[in-house]
């Protein structure tokens, strides 16, 4: 289907089903119950899942396939956000022109930065991209304040021109981004007994964009171009002596992944029409590296899982506070309760980075292939158990 083989089609359909049902899947606990704080099915967070999923899918096309580790990809995310907000200000609150300009602009920036940075490989390439991103952050933060809004960020104003929306009555409020009459913040709530499920237009729009982005990524992975990128990672010297010029291949991969980042930036601006320089800071670049490695470098679905896992921890674990901990451990004797709370406390709330760090270390040491490898191991475990019980035939299956 769609030019994909059976396995890839299944994967695409699986991701489509998961994103479509996310408002249910991420809200498994009834409203008001003690576990409700683990619910992630609210629009703001679900939007972040798919937007950072796009960012990580694109990053993986560069890092996962060619092995070139960019430490400055958040710069393209920022460029995308600024471009999108400018389109909202100047042209229209419709998100489509904003997305188009964001992708084009981030692609141009990626072309320029990639052209220079790709003259080196390995750690030098990483440092060059990091330097570029930090320069862009510094420019956005101070020098280019008229364009970027500097410290406060770029915001919409009531008197923005919005040429195409000229006739639309705003009623004295700043309009919100939308798509042909639907607003990104539009939501429908469904109450089923104690459960409340929220269906948000912005989330579903971003989810459809992510599915398209994921589909394109699968096509790239399976194409001759994708094979050349993997060959670059495997043995760049052999590729050169096989008559292939590696530079345009890496540059094309860099630009494509920069455009994915720009797309993610545009969607962020579409959900919340505001762009700030902190989006380009190096920690944001590092985050997408973590997402990709945590999920599984070079795998198709890994970056989406990694993005989801990190955004979930960032938003859910950081919300747990000491009162909640005391509630959890209330059934224990007082002294023990306090001890446990004291022990766990550093890992929650603002300490969520500590939890992330430990999980990241465990994954890198025990599951170098990321969450995807973890999933494969579990699947193999079940498979071998089944065959063990059905027949006592020798287990000499080759590893997948």
């Amino acid at each position, binding site marked *: 289907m769609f030019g994909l083989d059976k396995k890839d089609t299944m994967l695409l359909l699986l991701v489509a089903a998961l994103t479509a049902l996310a408002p249910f899947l991420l809200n498994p606990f009834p409203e008001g119950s003690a576990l409700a704080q683990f619910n992630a099915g609210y629009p703001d967070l679900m939007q972040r899942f798919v937007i950072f999923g796009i960012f990580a899918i694109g990053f993986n096309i560069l890092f996962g396939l060619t092995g070139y580790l960019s430490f400055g990809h958040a710069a393209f995310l920022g460029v995308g956000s600024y471009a999108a907000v400018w389109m909202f200000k100047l042209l229209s609150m419709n998100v489509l022109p904003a997305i188009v300009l964001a992708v084009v602009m981030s692609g141009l920036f990626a072309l320029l930065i990639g052209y220079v940075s790709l003259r080196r490989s390995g750690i030098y390439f990483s440092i060059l991209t990091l330097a570029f991103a930090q320069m862009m952050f510094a420019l956005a933060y101070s020098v280019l304040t008229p364009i970027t809004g500097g410290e406060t960020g770029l915001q919409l104003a009531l008197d923005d021109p919005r040429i195409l929306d000229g006739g639309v009555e705003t009623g004295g409020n700043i309009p919100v981004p939308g798509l042909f009459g639907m607003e990104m913040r539009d939501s429908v709530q469904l109450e089923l007994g104690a459960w409340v499920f929220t269906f948000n237009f912005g989330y579903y729009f971003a989810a459809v964009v992510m599915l398209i982005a994921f589909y394109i990524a699968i096509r790239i992975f399976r194409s*001759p*171009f994708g094979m050349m990128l993997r060959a670059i990672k495997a043995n760049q010297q052999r590729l050169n002596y096989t008559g292939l010029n590696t530079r345009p291949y890496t540059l094309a991969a860099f630009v494509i992944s920069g455009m994915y980042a720009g797309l993610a930036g545009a969607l962020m601006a579409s959900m919340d029409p505001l762009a700030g320089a902190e989006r380009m800071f190096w920690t944001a670049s590092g985050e997408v590296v973590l997402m990709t490695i945590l999920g599984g470098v070079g795998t198709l679905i890994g970056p989406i899982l990694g993005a989801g896992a990190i955004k979930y921890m960032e938003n859910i674990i950081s919300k747990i506070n000491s009162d909640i901990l005391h509630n959890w451990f209330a059934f224990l004797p007082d002294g023990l309760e306090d001890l446990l709370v004291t022990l766990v406390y550093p890992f929650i709330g603002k300490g969520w980075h500590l939890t992330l760090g430990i999980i990241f270390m465990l994954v890198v040491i025990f599951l170098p292939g990321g969450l995807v490898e973890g999933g494969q191991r579990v699947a193999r475990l079940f498979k071998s158990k089944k065959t063990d019980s059905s027949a006592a035939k020798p287990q000499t299956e080759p590893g997948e």
Partner: protein
Amino acid sequence: MKILEVKDVNKRFGGLKALSEVNLSVEENTVHAIIGPNGAGKSTLLNCLVGKLIPDTGSVMFNGQSVLGRAPHEINQMGISRVFQTPEIFGDLTVMENMMIPCFAKRDGAFELNAISSVQSQKDIIEHAEHVLDDMNMLDKRHMVASAMSRGDKRRLEIGMCLSQEPRLLLLDEPTAGMARADTNNTIDLLKEIKSKRDITIVIIEHDMHVVFSLAERITVLAQGTPLVEDTPENIKGHPKVREAYLGESSGH
């Protein structure tokens, strides 16, 4: 016709004179061996032919065109394929993918942004790659990850990858280095078979005299960066200068 002509090539590395006044011409459709003791400049010369190094002075003409100043991929596209001393293949990729990549390079040139069609839909490439694998007796290994193969098979694959591009000149840099005698003999047979099946010029750098005298039609002896003699294997064997500079030192052969 001379397919490769090296004229007055000099190459210095700091104070070390690696090549001085090297002249070499290779007749089309022959097997030409370059021998010489360690440090004679054999690898430096080869690197000057494939674009890895640029000689300080002199010219290198392939098929009437200069190769100097061209990047390795451009030189390959001109029709020169190179086999490395340790097999250089795409270890993480399957044998079949390894074979398809040079086929793509042959068909599409140095760069082609073919990102939408799937690899599986490239029937002509698949057919060509399978044909070459079959020629190399490796078709049964096509789904294997290349790095999992034995050294002999990696060498075989690398030679096959070069041949799939139908090069006019094949450069082999010590193709049997570190191989057991049986693998060495297999490689000799493979190269003989390759030569008998098609029009191809082979330049081979080799330490192993057994390999050289089994394959070469012409031999150039290099010593201290300068060619001593160039002659047929029979004449080289008895040449006093050669015995002194090279064979005398490795009496084991």
